[in-house]
Structures are given as structure tokens and as C-alpha cells.
């Protein structure tokens, strides 16, 4: 196998977790993404791909959560956006 063509995980982003009231699902995406980028030692402008996990239905007072919405609020314009099913 050509290891130089191999990929690797280089940063992990956490958020407060458990019972954290008053927060939208979007805000958790944004905080996790921001922390993961910083953890890797990168800046958001380096990010050119965004994959959001599939998600449960949005709360009744929130918009449906799309990768586009996450990218828009992160202030990035990735070449590749995807919502993955698994």
C-alpha cells in the first residue's frame, strides 16, 4: 500500500456535553468544527471539505441542519459538501 496516499485524522474537536440547555444543534456543530480545526493547528480557510453526519429531525424551533448551513456559519466555502448516511 502506498502509505503517502493514505489519509489520517489530525485533529479532534469536543464541546460541552450532557445536559447543555439553550443551545441549537447548529451551535454544537460550529463549536466542534472550530475546536477540531484549532486542534489540528489549522485555520478555517484551510478546510475545503465538510461532511456532516446524518441527523435526527430538527427541533420544532430550528431549521433543518444541512452541511451548507454549517459551512455558511463557519464562514467557509468548501469544494465538497456532504451529508453521510453512516
Amino acid at each position, binding site marked *: 500500500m502506498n502509505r503517502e496516499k493514505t*489519509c*489520517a485524522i*489530525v485533529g479532534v474537536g*469536543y464541546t460541552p456535553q450532557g445536559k447543555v440547555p439553550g443551545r441549537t444543534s447548529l451551535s454544537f456543530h460550529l463549536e466542534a468544527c472550530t475546536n477540531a480545526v484549532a486542534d*489540528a493547528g489549522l485555520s478555517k480557510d484551510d478546510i475545503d*471539505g465538510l461532511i456532516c453526519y446524518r441527523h*435526527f429531525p430538527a427541533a420544532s424551533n430550528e431549521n433543518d441542519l444541512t452541511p451548507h448551513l*454549517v459551512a455558511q456559519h463557519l464562514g467557509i466555502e468548501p469544494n465538497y459538501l456532504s451529508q453521510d448516511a*453512516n
Partner: protein
Amino acid sequence: MLEAGLCRYVLISYGHNELSSDSLFTMLTEFSGDDVVFGHFGATGGYALAARRAMHEYRTGPQTWKHIAVGQRAWANLNPRAVMHGRPMSFDDYLSSQYVVEPLRLPDNCLVNDGGRAVVVTTLERARDLRHPPAVILGLGQHNPSAQAAQSGALAGSTGAKKAGEQALSMAGVTRDDIDACQIYDCFTYTVEVTLQDYGFFGPGEGEDWFSGGTIGPGGRMPVNTSGGQLSEAYYMGLTPLSEAAMQIMGRCGERQLGPATKTKEPNIILVSDNGGILQAHSCCILGRI
């Protein structure tokens, strides 16, 4: 995308205000159809059906699953971030807890929590310039054996884990004996059992013996779900196991770090799983140190 050069750095993200919003309640109200009329709906119902089928076909049940719930809880108590940190659980606690859907008790179910998780993926070439030791993706496999639980022949195994695991190990050029630890998608305890079984760690009905004696917990010979997992740390779909595997490979897990700190094997190669639907879709990923 990375290999083809179309992307350089890719974010994978999940976030949900699952506990504090009405999102899950909304989902419950949207269930419809014949199954629902007769009282069968939701993930716990589906997995309870699968677990019951397994109990019919081979020796398994609460005496097997208690080892998974208690073992993972022990890991959570080494992880200050875990939702269940500071809440130890004994076998008696497990066996006396309430049923959600028989045969699955409350601690057989993953957590419902608010929060998010994300990881950054890039090529190994670029990874070498960054600040953490990279968690290298050595192998991947995917297999999706059924579209609907009602038509599935995979509820008691073999699930997609069998072929996905074989593919991932083959791509990585390693064998099951090379695996130092596992991070297994654990929506329910039974999912952990059937997944490890389909990966070939033990045969159908041998799970209780394999798990007995603290196999998967701190100090165990095959650590599983070292953050506490979705049962005891937090639920972020596949990112709970994947992010923990990466952190262990990087050596950033503090008190729960695999190796001398927890009297376990050095985590040179970790097997990670993800699973969707009622055991309908499966992904396997082998992560390793350079």
C-alpha cells in the same frame, strides 16, 4: 476526495441538542405504519427484536451484556468528560435496572445527550507537518446487508460487520490478532456483542465467556470503547468511536490512555466500527500509528 486531490483538509462533524430540545419527541410523533399501530417503533424496539432473536439462536442475554455495560462504565470513570463519569455501576446495578424494551434495560441503551464532535482528516503527507501524531487510516470496509429490519436476516448475525471487517483488515494488511483495542459503535450493548462476534473475536454463543473477567475494561486483554462509548461517554453517532480511536492513537487520553497507564497493550492498531439502522449498514475502519 483527499486521495484524488479534490480536497486538502476535510471536516467531519456531528452536533445535536438531543436532550434539551424536542427533536426526539418530534421523531417519535412521526412514526407511522402497521408496526407502530401494534406498538413496535423506535431504535430500542428494533434492537430489542434483534437481541431477542439472538437469545433464541444462541447463548446470550443480560449475563453477557452486563459485562459490556459495566466494562464501558469503568472506562467512563477514567474520563472526566464522560456523561457517566463519577457514576460507577456494578453487575447488580445493571441487573436491577428497569427495562426500556425487554430484553434491553436502561444501561443497555446509549445515552441521550447534548453536544457535538468533529474530526479533521487530511493526507498522511500533510499530516506529518501538523502538531499531533497522525491517526493513520490503514483500512476501510463497508457492507450493508439489508434495507429494512422487517426483511432482515442479519438481526442475530452475520451483520455487515463480517464482510466490512474482512475488507478493512485486508486493506490494512493486518489480522485480527494485530488489533490492540476496539472502538465499537454501541447504540446498545447487544450491538457490541454481535459486532465483535461478526469480526470473529468469538463464535456465536461464546460472548459471555469471552467478555467475562474484565476483558474489555481497564487492564483487560481487549479494551473496548475506552471513552465510555455511547453507553457511558456521549452519543455522536460514528464520531464517538472514531474520535476516541484517534485520541488513543495520538496518545492524548490521560488517565484512560491505553498502554502502561491502564495496564493494556500499546494502541498501535485500533479497530473502529459504525453501524446504521437496525444493524442494516456497517462501516469498519482500522486506525494505526505510523
